[in-house]
C-alpha cells in the first residue's frame, strides 16, 4: 500500500515507530501531487524545496531525540484563505494574486508548532464564496471521483486533495457549509467546529460571524487528531472562546448505546435526491444497530436558513471586502489608463454640453477604487458585495439585515429546543451528489440552495460533521451530516468514528489513475 493511501493516524504510527520518515511522507505526497494534481487541480501552490526542508527538520528533531509535536511529520494542505507568512495567500482572487502576508494565521502557526508539514495551499471559490470551487483564478477543482464534476466548495481544493490522496490532512473553512458540502461530495470526513472553537486570526474573512476553520481528512479519528491541535483560545481573536480543549481521540471508542439521535422530517422532503435519501436512511439504520435511539425533532425555521444566510453573509462580506481597494495591498488598476479614461469621459460630456455630469464624474481616486475592485474581483464576489451593500443601505437595513438577525435567533432557538431532546441531529449534507462543472454557474439561486442543510449550523454557531455513507449508482460519494450543540465536538467525532468502525465508506478511494 502506498504511503499516500494511509490515513493520518496510520501514517503517524509509522512516523513514530521510525518505519517512515517525515521526508519519505512528504516525498510520497509531492510525487502524488506531481502525478495527479493537474487532473483535479486541488492544490494551487507547492514549494517542493521548502516542504522537504520542513520535513527534514522534523526528522532531525526526532533523530536528535528532541520532543516532537502531535502532528510530527504529517503533511497537511491548507486552504488558500489562511495566511501563511511570507508566502502567497491569494483567496483564489486576482485581487490578492501577489499578496504575501507578513504573519501566519493562528491555525497555521499551531500546525507548524505541532510539527505538521505544510504541503501546499488548496484551491477554493474566490474568497470562499461559492459551493463548487469553480470561481478561483486558478480554475475549477475537479471531483476525484468524476473529473467532469465539481468537488463542492468552497473548500473544494482541500476536500479533493484528501480524496485524491494528495495529503492525509487538510484545513478548510466553513461559512455556510464550505467544509461539509465538499467533504460530502468528495467522500471524505469534514468537521465544522462550534463558532469560537478555533481562532479566526489570519483566516481571511468572508462573513466573520459565520466563518469557522475546521479539519478535513479521511476519517473522524484523523479529524480529531487535527482538531486537538487547532482548537483553543487565542487572545488575538475576541470571538474565540476560552474553554479547555478535550482530548478528542480519547473518547472515540466509547460505544453509542443510549445516544439519542434526532431526525428532522423536513430534511427528507421535496428537493432531496432519492439515492441520497436512501443512503442517509441506511446510515440511520446503522446508528440504530449501534444502539442509538432515533427520535423525530422539529426545526421549524430551518427552511428559512438559506434566505437568512444570503442576507447576513453578503452584508458582512460587503464590509469585510471593502478593504480591497488597491491602496495598502492587493491589485490596483493601471493608473495611466485610468487618468486617460477619465479625461476622455470629461471631454465627451463637456462636448455634449452636460456640464453637471462632467462635474459629477468620479474623482481619480474614486475611479481608481472602482476599477481596481471591478477588475480584481470575480462575478460571484461582486454579486455578493452588491447584495450586501444593498441590504445594509439606508431604507433596507431593518427590512433585510435586522430581520435576518431575528430569524437567525429563531433558528438558534429551534436547535436549543431540539437538543433538549436529543444529543445529535442526523440528516443529509447536500440535496444531491456532485453536479457537473458549469451546471449552476449562471443560476446563483440554484447554487445557493445547495447550502440548505448546512447553513443553519453556521447561523446558530453549532458544530457539524459530514462523512461518507454511500455511493450513487454512478459511483459518486454520498455524505451524511451530524450536528451537535455548541462545544460537543467530542460527541460528533465519536458518533462519526463509531459509524466508520462499522462501515468502510471512508476507506474507499477514487480510481484516478489513467
Amino acid at each position, binding site marked *: 500500500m502506498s504511503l499516500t493511501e494511509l490515513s493520518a493516524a496510520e501514517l503517524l504510527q509509522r512516523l513514530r515507530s521510525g518505519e517512515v520518515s517525515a521526508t519519505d511522507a512528504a516525498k510520497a505526497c509531492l510525487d502524488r501531487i506531481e502525478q495527479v494534481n493537474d487532473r483535479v487541480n486541488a492544490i494551487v501552490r507547492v514549494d517542493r524545496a521548502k516542504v522537504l526542508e520542513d520535513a527534514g527538520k522534523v526528522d532531525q528533531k526526532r533523530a536528535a531525540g528532541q520532543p516532537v509535536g502531535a502532528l510530527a511529520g504529517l503533511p497537511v494542505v491548507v486552504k488558500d484563505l*489562511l*495566511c501563511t507568512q511570507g508566502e502567497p*495567500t491569494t*483567496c483564489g482572487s486576482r485581487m*490578492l494574486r501577489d*499578496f504575501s*502576508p*507578513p*504573519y501566519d*494565521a493562528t491555525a497555521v502557526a499551531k500546525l507548524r508548532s505541532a510539527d505538521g508539514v505544510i504541503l501546499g495551499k488548496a484551491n477554493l471559490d474566490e474568497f470562499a464564496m461559492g459551493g463548487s470551487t469553480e470561481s478561483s483564478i486558478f480554475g475549477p477543482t475537479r471531483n476525484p471521483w468524476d473529473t467532469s464534476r465539481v468537488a463542492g466548495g468552497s473548500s473544494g481544493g482541500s476536500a479533493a486533495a484528501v480524496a485524491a490522496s494528495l495529503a492525509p490532512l487538510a484545513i478548510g473553512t466553513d461559512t455556510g457549509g464550505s467544509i461539509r458540502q465538499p467533504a460530502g461530495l468528495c467522500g471524505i470526513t469534514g468537521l465544522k467546529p462550534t463558532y469560537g472553537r478555533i481562532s*479566526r*486570526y*489570519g*483566516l*481571511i*474573512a468572508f*462573513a*466573520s*460571524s459565520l466563518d469557522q476553520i475546521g479539519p478535513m481528512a479521511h476519517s473522524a479519528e484523523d479529524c480529531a487528531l487535527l482538531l486537538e491541535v487547532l482548537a483553543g483560545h487565542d*487572545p*488575538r*481573536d*475576541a*470571538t474565540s472562546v476560552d474553554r479547555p480543549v478535550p482530548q478528542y481521540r480519547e473518547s472515540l471508542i466509547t460505544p453509542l448505546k443510549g445516544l439519542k439521535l434526532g431526525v428532522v422530517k423536513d430534511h427528507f422532503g421535496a428537493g432531496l435526491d432519492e439515492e441520497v435519501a436512501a443512503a442517509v436512511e441506511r446510515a440511520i439504520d446503522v446508528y440504530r444497530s449501534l444502539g442509538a435511539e432515533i427520535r423525530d425533532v422539529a426545526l421549524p425555521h430551518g427552511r428559512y436558513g438559506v434566505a437568512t444566510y444570503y442576507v447576513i453573509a453578503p*452584508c*458582512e462580506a*460587503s*464590509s469585510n471586502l*471593502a*478593504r480591497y*481597494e488597491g*491602496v*495598502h*495591498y492587493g491589485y490596483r488598476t493601471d493608473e495611466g489608463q485610468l487618468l486617460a479614461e477619465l479625461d476622455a469621459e470629461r471631454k465627451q460630456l463637456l462636448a455634449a454640453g452636460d456640464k453637471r455630469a462632467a462635474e*459629477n464624474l468620479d474623482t481619480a*481616486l*474614486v475611479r481608481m*477604487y472602482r476599477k481596481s475592485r471591478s477588475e480584481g474581483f470575480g462575478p460571484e464576489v461582486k454579486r455578493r458585495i452588491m447584495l450586501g*451593500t444593498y441590504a*445594509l*443601505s*439606508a431604507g433596507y*437595513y431593518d427590512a433585510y*439585515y435586522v430581520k435576518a438577525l431575528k430569524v437567525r435567533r429563531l433558528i438558534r432557538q429551534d436547535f436549543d429546543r431540539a437538543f433538549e431532546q436529543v444529543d445529535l441531529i442526523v440528516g443529509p449534507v447536500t440535496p444531491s451528489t456532485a453536479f457537473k462543472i458549469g451546471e449552476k454557474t449562471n443560476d446563483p439561486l440554484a447554487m445557493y440552495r445547495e447550502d440548505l442543510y448546512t447553513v443553519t449550523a453556521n447561523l446558530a454557531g453549532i458544530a457539524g460533521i459530514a462523512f461518507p455513507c454511500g455511493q450513487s449508482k454512478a459511483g459518486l460519494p454520498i455524505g451524511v451530516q451530524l450536528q451537535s450543540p455548541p462545544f460537543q465536538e467530542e460527541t460528533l467525532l465519536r458518533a462519526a468514528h463509531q459509524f466508520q468502525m462499522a462501515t468502510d465508506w471512508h476507506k474507499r478511494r477514487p480510481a484516478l489513475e489513467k
Partner: protein
Amino acid sequence: MSPYTVIIGLEVHVQLATESKLFCGCSTAFGAAPNTQICPVCLGMPGALPVMNRKAFELSLRTAAAINCQIARFTKWDRKQYYYPDLPKGYQISQYDLPFSHDGWLEISDPKGKFEPKRVGIIRAHLEEDAGKSMHDERAGLADSQIDLNRTGTPLLEIVSQPDMRSPAEAKAFLSELKLLLTYLGVSDCNMQEGSLRVDGNINLHIDTPGGKVATPIVEIKNMNSFRAVERALAYEAERLYEVWQETGQKLGDVPKQTRGWDDAANVTRGQRHKEESSDYRYFPDPDLVPVTVTDAVVEQVLASLGEMPVALRTRLETEFGLSAYDSDVLVNQGRALVDYFLHVATATGDGKLASNWLQQDVLRMLNERNWDIAAFPVTAPALAVLLKKVQAGELITSRAREVLQAMIDTGRSADEVMREKGIEQVDETELVALCQELVAANPKVAEDFKAGKMQAIGSLVGQAKKKNPNVNPGRVRELLIEALGKL
C-alpha cells in the same frame, strides 16, 4: 438687541491617553516617522482581527461619568462604512445606536459675567478609532497624495453636545471647561496642535421676524484648530448666516446641511464641495468585536474614583479660603498641580488670599515668562510658605520678600539661605533704638521740622537708617524715630 439668537452645538474628538492603539499593540506616540507605528491589525490586512484596549474603555468611562452621562449597561461596536485612503479597512469601528454613554451635562460660567452660568447638555459620548492622515503637497505639483497610517486606530472619544450654546463665547467656555476637565481626569493631553483634541461646530440662527421665529439651515464648521479659531469661526458664521438669510430667506429644511471649513488666515469659512452621492454609512454591528456589559458596581467605582472636579474645586477655594470667583477660576484653570501648590501654601500660611496673590502675581508670572509648568518651578510649595510666613511675621517687607523669592528661583536655595547670603537678618531692637537716637541727635534740623508738624521730615531719617543698615524694617524705624523725637 440682536435680531437673532445663535444656536450652537459642538462635536469634540479627544484622543485618549493610552500607550497602545484601541485594537492593537502599536504605539500611539505622536511625531514618529510616517508608517512606523502600524501592524497588520491597524493596517487592516486580510485576516487580522481587532481586540479592544481595556484602558481605553476605562478612560472613556471616567470621562463620561465626569460629564454626568448615563453609562449604558450594554454597549457594542459598529462599523461605519466609507471609502477613504486613510481608512484602510474601508470602515471605521465606532458606535452607532448603543453608545456606552449618553445624556450628560457640563456646567459653564464666565467669571467676567459675559453670560449666565448654565448647563450644556451632552447628547452622547462614544468610543471609536481614529483614521490616518493623507498629505498632499500641491506646490510640489505631485500627482499623488501620501498616506501615513500612524494615527490609524488611536482611541478617540467623540463627545456630542446638545445645541445649548447661545454665543461663540459660550462655545469657547464649553471647550475650555471640557479641556480642563479632561486634563484633571488625565484621560487626554488635549493638545490641539497635535490633533489630540479636535472640534467641529454646528450652528444656525433663530431669527425674530414679524411672523414669528424662523430657524435658518444648519451649517457644520470644520478645520477650527484653536479655541480662538472656534470663537472667531462661529462669530463669522453667525453673521454670514444672517446675511444669507436676508438674501435668500432660506429656512431649516430648505437646503441640505452644508459643511464649511474655517480658513484661519483669511478669517472666513468656505463651503466644502460635495458629490451628489449622499453619505450612507451602512452601520452594522462589528462581528469581530463582542459587546461590553457594565455593572452597577463598576459605575459606582468609576464615580468614586473621579476625584474633585474643577467646578467643585472652585467652590471649595471660595468657601474655604475666601477667594473671589475670579481668583478661584484663575487658579483652578491652571490645572490640578497648581491648585495643589496653592492648597499647600494657603494651608501652611492660613491665609488663602495672601497665597492666591503671591501665586498669581509672582509664581504665575514667572511660569509664563519662562514657559514652565508648576512641576518645573524651582521653589516648592513648602519653601514658598516659609517665605510668606516671614512676611506675615514682619521679618520681611513685601518688596524684600520678592527679592528673596527671585533669588530662590534663580539659585534653588531656601529663603533662609538666600537671606543669609544677602545679609538679610532681623536687626536687634536695642541696636535699632540706639541707631534712631543717634540719628535724631545728629539731625537737629529734622527735630525742629518735626516739632513744627512736618511729619514728612522723618522720611529722610528713615532713608539714612536704611543706608546705614539695609536690614532694618522701615516701619519699625519710623515708629522708633517718632518715639525718640517725641521725647525731645
